[in-house]
């Protein structure tokens, strides 16, 4: 095939000669606006936004519910960071004379059964929950995408085995996985993260599979196979981008569920160990006294609810914002 190689090299030489002219054109037109041959003046996208992330965030901000979600999530992150260096009261400053105190100037949301400041514990709890939610989502995302890839593989042995495996494993409840893990590991943050990662990862794979399968059997994948793309390249350039909106929605729902799971598992005694601040911990220690001191249960409950709603709404808005088909602004980046 050597003679043919030479033949195509001359072709590419020609192409590169043409391309030098082309690139000069491009260089000369770099500025605030690019004048097209047709005479139309296009606003340079650089003036408004530099990357996709900015455009996506702006698209989310433009919707009312998106604004709500962004504010709540930003507040969550900010409070978590602040709690690392400052809380109104020390977490360990207990006051035996003022247990179950009402809200006051010293204790903004009152005190709990040991006389510790509820507001400070909730602030510190934010970082534990954020840590759990992020790691659970990362773990679930990695596992889910890996399994999704296996389920739509062109290797029929791999895809058949993984479909059956996912369908079988998905029947095990996340809480049961956590209870099993707690036997050797005891109550710990890792139990929640691993259990949620496995449970939500399996769910993610199952839910993203139809979208991924549609892409895998599509003409554009057939086309890319015909020009020599590998399975990995097809996964990266075609299947994943097409399944991404579904994956993002599912992951943000999973983040919300992870916050709920933290509360639930901590209440069961297999989640966050005592002494580690978390919203579930604040709930679990006060829930027995809900008839006597309803306020101490209300605060953590309210925070968990608002955060979970914000995450669910965020997933919904994010879905529309990251899809270039539904978000025309993204096409201009």
């Amino acid at each position, binding site marked *: 095939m050597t003679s043919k190689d030479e033949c195509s090299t001359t072709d590419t030489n020609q192409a590169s000669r043409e391309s030098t002219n082309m*690139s000069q054109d491009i260089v000369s037109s770099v500025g605030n606006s690019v004048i097209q041959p047709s005479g139309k003046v296009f606003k340079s996208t650089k003036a408004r936004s530099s990357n996709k992330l900015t455009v996506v965030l702006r698209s989310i901000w433009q919707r009312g519910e998106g604004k709500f979600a962004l504010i709540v999530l930003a507040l969550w992150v900010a409070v978590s960071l602040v709690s690392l260096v400052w809380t109104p009261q020390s977490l360990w400053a207990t006051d035996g004379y003022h247990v179950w105190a009402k809200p006051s100037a010293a204790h903004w949301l009152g005190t709990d059964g040991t006389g510790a400041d509820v507001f400070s514990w909730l602030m510190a709890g934010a970082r534990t929950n954020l840590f759990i939610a992020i790691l659970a989502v990362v773990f679930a995302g990695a596992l889910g995408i890996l399994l999704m890839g296996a389920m739509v593989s062109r290797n029929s042995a791999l895809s058949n085995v993984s479909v059956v495996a996912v369908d079988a494993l998905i029947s095990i409840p996340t809480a049961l996985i956590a209870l099993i893990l707690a036997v050797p590991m005891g109550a710990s943050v890792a139990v929640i993260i691993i259990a949620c990662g496995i449970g939500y990862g399996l769910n993610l794979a199952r839910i993203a599979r139809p979208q991924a399968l549609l892409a895998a059997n*599509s003409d554009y994948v057939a*086309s890319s196979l015909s020009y020599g*793309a590998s399975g990995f390249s097809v996964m990266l350039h075609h299947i994943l981008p097409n399944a991404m909106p579904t994956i993002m929605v599912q992951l943000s729902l999973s983040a919300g569920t992870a916050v709920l799971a933290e509360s639930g598992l901590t209440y069961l005694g297999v989640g966050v160990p005592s002494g580690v601040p978390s919203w579930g911990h604040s709930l679990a220690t006060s829930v027995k006294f809900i008839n006597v001191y309803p306020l101490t249960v209300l605060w953590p409950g309210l925070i968990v609810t608002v955060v979970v709603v914000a995450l669910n709404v965020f997933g919904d808005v994010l879905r529309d914002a990251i899809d*270039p088909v539904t978000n025309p602004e993204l096409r201009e980046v």
Partner: protein
Amino acid sequence: MSVEVKQLGVSIADKRIVQNVDLHIGDGERVGLIGSSGSGKSMISKAMFGLLPTNAQISGSVMLGDTQIIGADETVLASLRGRYVGAVFQNPASSLNPVLAVGKQIELPLKLHYDLDKADRQARVAAMLEKVGLDETTAQKYPSELSGGQQQRVGIATALITSPRLIIADEPTTALDSITQRQIVDLLVSLVDKAGASMLFITHDFSVLARATTRCYVLDNGQIIEFGDTSDLLNNPQNGQTKKLVGAARELTLQRKRDSDD
């Protein structure tokens, strides 16, 4: 690149789909393959890429240049695909990834087969877009923003960007209206001739065939029933089935003329 198909047979689940097919494409030649739906045209094109379904039984030989495709190693096939053999597909709307900008899709084969930096690749994409008659802003557009004809031009750009030596066009005009069909065929023919590549043009449309090819094969029920010079074959078909096909095409053309005269 020349193609030599000898005694090709393909069967899936004991059903013979293609049998005893002999087909030759010379270097720089444009050859047609025509037949009704289900006659096995696409199976032959898939065999040339080594992309037949895994449960297919294949016999015979397919030589691309001096490489045997049947039973070849996957790495050999992967280096041939795109680099030496390019494909244009039937349905341009579904052959493009809806969530990837057009420029990126044209760039992918270049990324796979050549070691070029990003600026060089983008310049080549822009040059290729110009060659297929699209302006360079098209690179940032998404498939849904293009018309069917423009989408097929992108398909052609994707197939030709790596300057392959053989183009397999599998019904590239079927999904287009008749004016766009003509433009796309003319574009494809001129680009293939300019590059000195060979082409296998698969279709069921005789008017497109006459425009695109010099020689052609008629396929029926998985077998070649007639072959020869395209114009001879269209004017004077020998085989009964070919006569039927040509006759039907003529009637349709006359019908179309009568409709437009009214």
